[in-house]
Every structure is written in C-alpha cells, then in structure tokens.
C-alpha cells in the first residue's frame, strides 16, 4: 500500500491554500476556454504555459491540469445549453443533452452530465493512482529499443484505432516528425531542415503549432457557420441537481462501461473525442431504450460524458509513467514538463515524488472544485455566449498572436502560427487528425533519439528490435495496428465483392 501513503503525502501538497487558489483560477480559465468556440483545452493550456515558467513545477502542473478539467466541463455547458460544442470532445453530448435541455430540463441535463463526468474522472484518477507507479517501475528497465518500440506502438495505434482515414493519419504523423526535426539535431549537433531560414535554427515550438492548428484553425471553422446562440434557460435549480445526481447509480452499468471505454481510449492514444463517440455509439446499441437516443435520453448524456472525462484524465497516465501523452492536451502539458526541466517518464516516480503525487492528489481535489465551480458559474458563462461572435473572434486572434510571440519573443513565430492556422483549418475540413500531428511534434525528437541510440547499440542492425520478448511483442503489436485498417478493408472487399466499401461522411469524425 505504498501508493496510498504516497497519495496521502500528495494530498498534503495539493490541499494548501495557494494550490487550492491555483485550482480555482485554472478551472475558471478552463471553463472560459471551454465555453468560447475557437479556444479549446490544447491551446488554452499552451497560452498559459509561458506564464508558468517562473513557478514551481508542481504548482504549474496543478494550474494547467485544473485548466484542462475546467475546459472539459465548459465544453459540456455549451453543448447542453446552446447545442454548440465548445470542445470537440463534447460533440456527442449535444445529441441528447440539448434535446433534454430544450424540453425544459436544463438542470437535469447539466447535473447528469457533470455527475457522470466526475465519475469518469474519478475512475481515471483511481486508475492512475494504482497503475502509474507500477507501469513506471516496469519502464525503469527499458532501454532505447524498448522506448522506441513503445513510441512506435503509440503512433501505430493512432493509425489503427484513431478513426480517421489511415493514410491521412500517417501523413499528419510524418509532418509532425519532420517539424520536430527542424533546428539543431541533438545527437550530431548539425542544423537540419531550416531551408535557408536562419531563425529556424531554434526549431519550431509546439506551442506555436498548437495555437495555430487549434486556435486559428478552429476559429476559421467556427466562423464559417454563423451560429446564433439561442440558449434555453440557464437557471440552476439546486434541488434538481441533487435529485439528478441521486438518480445516477441506477445507470451503473452505463457508467462503468463508459468509464472503461474512456480509460482504454485515454491510455492508448485514442483521445477523449474518439472515446465519447465510441461510448455513445455502444450505449445506443446496447441500451434497451436505444431507439429513443437523440431525444434527450439520460444514458445518451451519461455515456459520452463519462467516457470523455475518463479518457481526458487517464491520458495523463502514459504521460507520467512513460513520457507518451495520450491526448493533444496531455502532449502540451508534457512539453511544459520538459520546459520546466523535468524529464517525463519513469524517473519522475523516483526523482520527483512530490511532483507526481501532488499532481495525482490534485486531480481528485481539482475535479471536485471543477464540479462545484461549473455549477455555480453556469449562468455567468451562459451570458458570455451572448456576446456576438464578431466581437470575440478578433480578440481570440489577438490572444493567439500575442501568445505565439511571447513564447520566444519572435515575430517569425507569429507568422508561422498564422500559417499553422490555415493548415489546421484545411486539416479539420478534410478530416486529417490533428492530435497525432501535435504528439509527433512534441515527442518526435525522443522517438528519433531512441531509434538512433538503438542503432548505435546494435551497430546498425534492426535485429535489436526483436532481441527479447518484450520488444518483439511491442513491435509486432505496432505493426499489427498499422496493418489493421488494410486488413479490414480487404475483408470488407472480400465479403462484398460487388459493392465497394461505403464510408458515409457521417462516419468521418474529427479526432482530436
């Protein structure tokens, strides 16, 4: 029961006045970026990142992770009250949340969503509490080949299970790797891929990429459809809140199933968006009232919300214990860890016990703070949605421009940010996944280093990736995931030789 003792120690770090205040600030800022269309968790966190450089790492991560929880909750608020998903991962919540709110039960819909979200997050944190240090212990024995194999498996699982078109995922990943390689090569010291621009020697910061891809890109997508925020009543009836939460245990099966889906998709880098869609789809298939989904069913809210938050939380498990983030936001946080001088991965659990357990304890507390704050502030943030989009859009542009500039006081970063914005728009429009791109930018260097170190060890033989059982399993698993879409396609063709596979556009999802 070492874990519990460590966790208690973590609570003594997390539950202090300054840290509770940071949590509240983080959650409120998170709800704000979650509510505003065009600002989401990944670029909210990266906007805040330059401001955390002077802080203690544990305080900084508490602020950033609380912002993440806030953003996850904020996205659900607009989904339910306005039928506008504030976050990609809360799209599935609109299917039943908005109809229920429109039928005069906004409090029930919100309380159900927050209650199940908190449950999902709780399961995710419990999983981290008991599994993370064990995974880290196993990973301590890893050498470069094992690390490369784990990275390979992570990237392959995007291709095999990401849900986007496999070739587009591969292209997005490779572009991310190429961007990560720009600048000075850490192994040989030579300058790579600057293409004649001297300023690129410092490399392309992932923060700049995230601001453009998610900030400007999402803004461009949002401006296309001129939406009118016509809210249903946003008054909270507190008695109904407790009644709705009290009714949740009746849907225990749906809760547990969705939490399991969420945790799985969070640990393997499927991400919260894929998790919430998958959970909604499975719930509709297995629920006795599946036909009524889409008209305001309770389980239609529970399933995506639980899975969304379970995935969002458990995405931090591989980040902490292996140094592989499970979602785009986790990737940004991991970039932060490296900037603060920490080395994400198993050594954290040995060298930085305070940091790790302070963070884990803060997840328990932060989610409680988030539920309370989001319920209290629903009317305020709902009022914010009534500000016309034409006023908010230029402000978000300015925030992104200033944010990109302040990363390293470079004008080139601002121009690149705008360029990434156009790319982000095109990619979103055409269903290229953005999360693998960001992930590859953040950990591309590490994957390459692991590969080159392995090659040095083996004197250039690829046989090192089949040298022991563990490495072989990981590599074979990765290859299997890479080939999975191809096999499925062939199987479909073989079964129905007459009609080619029909992918309706409805099946195309933007996986963040």
């Amino acid at each position, binding site marked *: 029961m070492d874990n519990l003792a460590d966790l208690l120690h973590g609570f003594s770090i997390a539950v202090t006045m300054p840290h509770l205040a940071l949590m509240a600030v983080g959650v409120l800022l998170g709800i704000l970026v979650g509510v505003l269309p065009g600002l989401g968790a990944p670029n909210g966190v990266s906007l805040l990142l*330059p*401001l955390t450089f002077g802080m203690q790492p544990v305080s900084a991560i508490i602020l950033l992770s609380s912002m993440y929880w806030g953003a996850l909750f904020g996205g659900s608020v607009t989904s339910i009250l306005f039928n506008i998903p504030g976050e990609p991962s809360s799209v599935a919540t609109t299917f039943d949340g908005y109809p229920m709110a429109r039928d005069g039960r906004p409090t029930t819909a919100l309380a159900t969503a927050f209650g199940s979200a908190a449950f999902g997050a709780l399961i995710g944190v419990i999983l981290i509490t008991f599994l993370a240090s064990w995974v880290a212990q196993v990973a301590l024995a890893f050498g470069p080949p094992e690390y490369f194999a784990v990275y390979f498996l992570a990237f392959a699982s995007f291709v095999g299970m990401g849900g986007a078109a496999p*070739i*587009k995922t*591969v*292209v997005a990943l*490779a*572009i991310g*790797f*190429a961007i990560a*390689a720009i600048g000075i*090569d850490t*192994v*040989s010291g*030579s300058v*790579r*891929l*600057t*293409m004649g621009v001297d300023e690129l020697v410092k490399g392309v910061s992932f923060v700049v990429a995230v601001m453009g891809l998610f900030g400007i890109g999402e*803004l*461009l997508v949002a*401006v*296309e*459809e*001129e939406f009118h925020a016509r809210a249903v009543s946003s008054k909270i009836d507190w008695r109904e809140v407790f009644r709705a939460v009290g009714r949740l245990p009746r849907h225990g099966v749906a809760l547990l199933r969705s939490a399991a889906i969420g945790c799985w998709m969070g640990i393997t880098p499927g991400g919260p968006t894929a998790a919430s869609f998958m959970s909604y789809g499975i719930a509709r298939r297995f629920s006795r009232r599946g036909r009524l989904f889409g008209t305001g069913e309770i389980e239609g809210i529970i399933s995506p919300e639980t899975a969304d938050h379970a995935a969002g939380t458990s995405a931090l498990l591989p980040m902490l214990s292996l140094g592989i983030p499970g979602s785009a936001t986790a990737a940004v946080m991991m970039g932060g860890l490296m900037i603060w001088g920490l080395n994400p991965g198993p050594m954290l659990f040995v060298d930085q016990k305070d940091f790790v357990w302070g963070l884990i304890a803060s997840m328990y507390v932060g989610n409680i703070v988030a539920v309370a704050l989001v319920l209290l502030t629903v009317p305020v943030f709902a009022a914010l949605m009534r500000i*016309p989009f*034409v*006023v908010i*859009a*230029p*402000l978000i*542009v*300015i925030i992104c*421009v*200033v944010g990109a*500039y*302040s990363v390293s*006081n470079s*004008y080139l970063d*601002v121009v690149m940010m*705008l360029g990434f914005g*156009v790319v982000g*728009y*095109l*990619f979103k*429009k*055409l269903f*290229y996944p953005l999360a693998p791109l960001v992930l590859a930018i953040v950990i591309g260097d590490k994957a*390459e280093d692991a*590969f*080159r170190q392995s*090659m*040095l060890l083996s004197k*250039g033989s690829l046989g090192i990736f089949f040298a022991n059982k563990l490495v072989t399993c990981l590599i074979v698993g990765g290859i299997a995931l890479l080939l999975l879409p191809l096999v499925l396609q062939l199987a479909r063709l073989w079964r129905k030789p007459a009609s*080619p596979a*029909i*992918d*309706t*556009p409805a099946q*195309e999802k933007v996986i963040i």
Partner: protein
Amino acid sequence: MISRRALELATAVLTGSFGVAVVVSSLDNGIGWSSAGVDAGTFPFLTGIVIVVGSLVNLVRGVLPAVTLASVPTAITSIELRRLAGLLVPAAIFVAAIPLAGMYVASALYVLAVLAIPRHQSVPRALVMAGATALALYVVFERMFQVSLPHGALAAALGF
C-alpha cells in the same frame, strides 16, 4: 465555391510539396550510416518519403470519383468563403502590420477596423473596445508579466 475534391487536391499538393522540401533538405545532412551512427538526415529523409507517398495516395484518391467525395460535393460555399476571408484577411494584415506599427497600435487598429467597418458596432463603441484591448495587453504583459511586446518601427522612429 470550392468543391471538396479541389480542397482535397490542394491539401495533398501542399503536404506533398512540404514532403519534397523535407527530402531535399535532409540530403544535405547525409542519409545512411556513418562512423557516428545513423546520419542526421536519415530520419527526416524517411519521414519526407512517407509524406510524399501518403500525399500521392491522397491525391489519387481525390482525383478518383470515390463514393465519399461524391456525397459531399461542396466543401466551402461562396458565403462561407466570404466569412472566412472576412476573418483571415484582416488577421493577416494585422500580423503584417506588427513590425511597423507595434503590437499595441496594430491590435487596436485591428479591433477598430473589424468592428466598425462592417458596422457590427457603432464607431464610438468600437473605439472604446480598441482602446481597452491595447490597454489590457499593456497592463497584462508589460506590467504584470514583464514581457515586452514589439513596439514597432514607427514607435522607435518617434523615440519610444
């Protein structure tokens, strides 16, 4: 109006040319094996090849009359295109103006132009918002976080 097919093709060409640039540029660093291990250019070279091949596949898929593309013929309608331009063009002008006018003046003018010219807000209200934006930036960055935003060539000429 831009068709889905045209957009797919344009994006595939964009990613493909990036891939070609990566491949060409990585050849300078050497690809293959040397006494120091894997050469610096090898990994970027391989990713460049993957980008080029993947883009070609996406290009071919875009050209072929596949079921997926036929079902969504239009990607961006002309109204949507106008709205996009309405956001992107002023934003690009704003970014281009920063070296000359500095962050504060540029962002104030940007807010003013975007709100007042299409008559979304009355001119006095737009003026107030523009002033508030510049002031907020100054207080938050220059004062609270001690981050100096660019003041621009114009301010330098005037002696700020």
